């Protein structure tokens, strides 16, 4: 364990790892990541791995587009095949208000340079004959969206960080942060003390716990989301399909299994990572209705993970006004994995240059909550 770190990143999930990776790549030495469990033990390792650019706010679209660029280069840059597959995202609309939203979003997304289009039910049927199109009014389709294996991506970053000379501590818990006169001086862990002046809070739904150690209020809470995976079957499903109306997403992994989840009606807290039988019942009913060919496919595992929900379901990326060089990247609200490469780049730039260079993330600052917020709609 290093005695002095230039930057301590708290949280070894995809966001913390991407930040540390980018810092090292940009030439920062002595970067230390602290993970309280194993690599990908938190929300990253539990998420479905979707990577989309079809968002409802222009800046989210831009950030996601930058992320896709970086995912395309991931294997070359980071050094591992993470099963990245640009099979597209298909969003399904069932109601008039969804139709309005989709059409508006697609116009906006196109204006940002995204290759996205509206599909009629017939076009959907032609492209994906196994989807039951009953009730579908239209679909929003982007071929360059896709998915990857988040666990591998997280581990790939960890390996790369160690290779580049960074330290990636696992099974190490932060117990305190020392501050003198508004300046950070060090981080206390259950495995020893690290002197540092810069701390990044990338602890996901537990980032408020880290903030509270030095009196910084982070308006994020954990919300449990359940997910399941089936046995592997021959590849048939290219896109990740999101059905807001029926409340689910589903994708087929590189391995052949189908991974899917929903937003529970009354989600449990992120502290409770248990499972419910109702989830299996509800998902089964939806799948058999919308993907009749899955009727006799076996579910082999269910689990849950925590979304780090912010008040407007958008990330919070900022530096504290009160504690100098306390930076937080949290509140990803279920889409941290897909944004991580671009966020990692932007936060590293913030730390090194004091401002972002590649992608503007200024709309994700904390002060938006005092100015007035608009919630991201496209969330399952």
């Amino acid at each position: 364990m290093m005695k002095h770190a230039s930057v301590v990143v708290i949280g070894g999930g995809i966001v913390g790892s991407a930040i540390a990776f980018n810092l090292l790549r940009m030439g920062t030495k002595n970067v230390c990541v602290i993970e309280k469990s194993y690599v990908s033990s938190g929300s990253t390792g539990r998420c479905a791995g979707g990577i989309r650019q079809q968002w409802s706010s222009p800046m989210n679209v831009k950030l996601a587009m930058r992320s896709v660029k970086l995912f395309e280069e991931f294997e070359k840059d980071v050094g591992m095949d993470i099963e990245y597959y640009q099979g597209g995202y298909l969003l399904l609309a069932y109601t008039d208000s969804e139709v309005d939203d989709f059409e508006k979003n697609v116009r906006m997304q196109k204006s940002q340079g995204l290759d996205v289009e509206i599909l009629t039910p017939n076009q959907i049927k032609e492209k994906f004959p196994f989807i039951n199109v009953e009730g579908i009014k239209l679909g929003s389709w982007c071929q360059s969206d896709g998915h990857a294996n988040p666990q591998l991506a997280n581990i790939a970053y960890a390996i790369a960080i160690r290779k580049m000379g960074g330290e990636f501590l696992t099974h190490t818990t932060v117990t305190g942060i020392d501050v003198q006169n508004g300046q950070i001086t060090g981080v206390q862990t259950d495995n020893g003390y690290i002197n540092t002046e810069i701390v990044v809070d990338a602890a996901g739904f537990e980032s408020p716990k880290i903030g509270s150690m030095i009196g910084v209020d982070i308006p994020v809470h954990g919300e449990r989301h359940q997910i399941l995976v089936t046995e592997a079957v021959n590849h048939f499903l290219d896109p990740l399909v999101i059905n807001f109306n029926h409340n689910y997403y589903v994708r087929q992994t590189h391995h052949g299994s189908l991974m899917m989840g929903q937003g529970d009606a009354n989600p449990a807290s992120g502290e409770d990572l248990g499972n419910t039988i109702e989830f299996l019942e509800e998902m089964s009913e939806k799948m058999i209705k919308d993907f009749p060919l899955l009727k006799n496919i076996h579910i082999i595992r269910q689990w849950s993970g925590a979304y780090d929900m912010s008040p407007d379901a958008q990330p919070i990326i900022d530096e504290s006004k009160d504690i100098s060089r306390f930076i937080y990247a949290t509140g990803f609200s279920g889409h941290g994995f897909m944004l991580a490469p671009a966020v990692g780049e932007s936060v590293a730039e913030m730390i090194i240059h004091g401002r972002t260079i590649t992608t503007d993330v200024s709309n994700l600052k904390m002060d938006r909550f005092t100015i007035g917020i608009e919630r991201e709609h496209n969330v399952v």
Partner: protein
Amino acid sequence: MKEYDAVVIGGGPAGMAAAEVLGDQVKTLILDENDMLGGQLVKQTHKFFGDHAHYASTRGFEIANKFIDKIEKKPVDILTSSTVIGIYPQNTVAYVKDGHEDQVKYKKLIIATGAMERQLPFINSDLPGVYGAGAVQTLMNQYGIFPGKRFLIIGSGNIGLILAYQLAQTGVEVRAIVEALDKIGGYEVHANKAKRLGIPIFLKHTIIKAIGDESVQGAVIAEVDDKFNVIAGTEKEIVADTICISVGLMPITELAEQAKCKIVYIPELGGYVPVHDERMRTTNPDVFVAGDLSSIEEATTAMIEGKLAAMQIVEDVKKTDLEKEISNEIKTLAIFRSGPKSLKIRSGLEKMGIVTPQIEVPKFSPLPNSENGKLHAIIECTEEIPCNSCELACKFDAIKVGENINTPPVFDPLKCTGCAVCVTACPGLAIFMEKLDESPNATLGIPYEFLPLPKSNEKMWGMDRDGNYVCDLTVKRVVKNSNKTHIVYVELPKEFVDVVRHVTYPQKESPFVCRCEEITVDQIEKVIDSGITDFEEIKRITRVTMGPCGGKNCKMITLGIISRKTGIPISKLSHGTSRPPVKPVEFSAFLRGDKK
């Protein structure tokens, strides 16, 4: 023409047992068409079940040798290479020896001609490479000839199971055993011996056809339904150059028919069988039957039947009173047949008017928790089969079977001295030795009948009951035994002492740890070597334990590899979280409408 008090046709266990009794009592001739006595015993290299009086835990060919020794010392005429061609009027037996026909007369006749293998119709069953299991045993065990290199065995009765084990002992590959029923036909311990060598047993499967132009190159097998109809779409191809058929035996009844014995069809006894009473006398008062001809059973029952017939003949001819001996033998036979595996035989005999009292088999009481710290036996014999070899082997009263030898043994670890004589005696290779103490490693003693014998300090692979790799282990010592069941003592992580049941030399190809996802030991070791030692991270990189079985088998093996590579005891490793469902469930199972 020579005349004998007793003529015995057939020199298998039934005929030999009869000749042994008849030998010093009446003028006796025994005829056999092979060049030596012994019948099927001469090709059996495995140890037999049974009790001490009937050569329990002695190998088949050794039983034959012992019998031959005894008979040769008695005033018995022995005619080998003599084929009986017919039974003629006036109690005449005609036979051919050395190309010449000759005849003898008998006062009493015992026909013990045994049985022949049933055939199974399937496409291309006439291709060279399709054999009866017995023929393969003869070629291999008697003449040292191998008909092939990759064997497929049809039928999981004792013969099929034993053949599979014997083939594997010689180092050839046994691809699978195929069984049409939903359970294994033979003894569990025989099945376990084959399974721990990694030989899969496909239940509810049958062979549809042999593949090949000039000779067998493979076979198509498929699943069958409850009515034995092939289920379309379940066909699989198995590469094999030899197909062994062991789907049962049927009695050879021709001579009995010619001797005017009434023949009836009783499927439970093997098909057409001569009607006989409990003393083995047929409807012809001068003619007796014994062995597989009278009902398809074991060598042990054949011996008792041979004895019974012989005793009755001695009574008949010499008018001596052997009633006490005869009723003893009848009782012994009844005990042998009292187990659940003999249900068919009992009901078959009942049709013939022979009622076998079903002797109550005491309920098997589970083995008590064994003592830690000292070397002691572990007995894995739970099926009610007629055998008490272990009880006889134990000089310390630690193993109890009791009067009914169908009772599974009850073991008292407090009395066990760790001498391991029972391990070498058990015909089912179902006894192991174990020592557990404070150290993270345990000692395990495994019965071993393969060559070459391992040497001390050799590194080997520990295999589980299904023949899958479990862990690397080290041979501590090898105890050789004159009966060829040697004991290999190995040291292995404590956690696997109940899992490992066989050892094998490390193979070139890395063994599978996770069969669902086909992850090998090599793949896992490579990840560990790269510096990633956390089970959870290894799991995510390799997919080990992430398959449909949920890691039931491979999790412990993976932890074992991590422990071996890192030196951290398994108990200190994190081992992941169990997630529902514990078994794969179809989406349709959760449909509310489908529920009761």
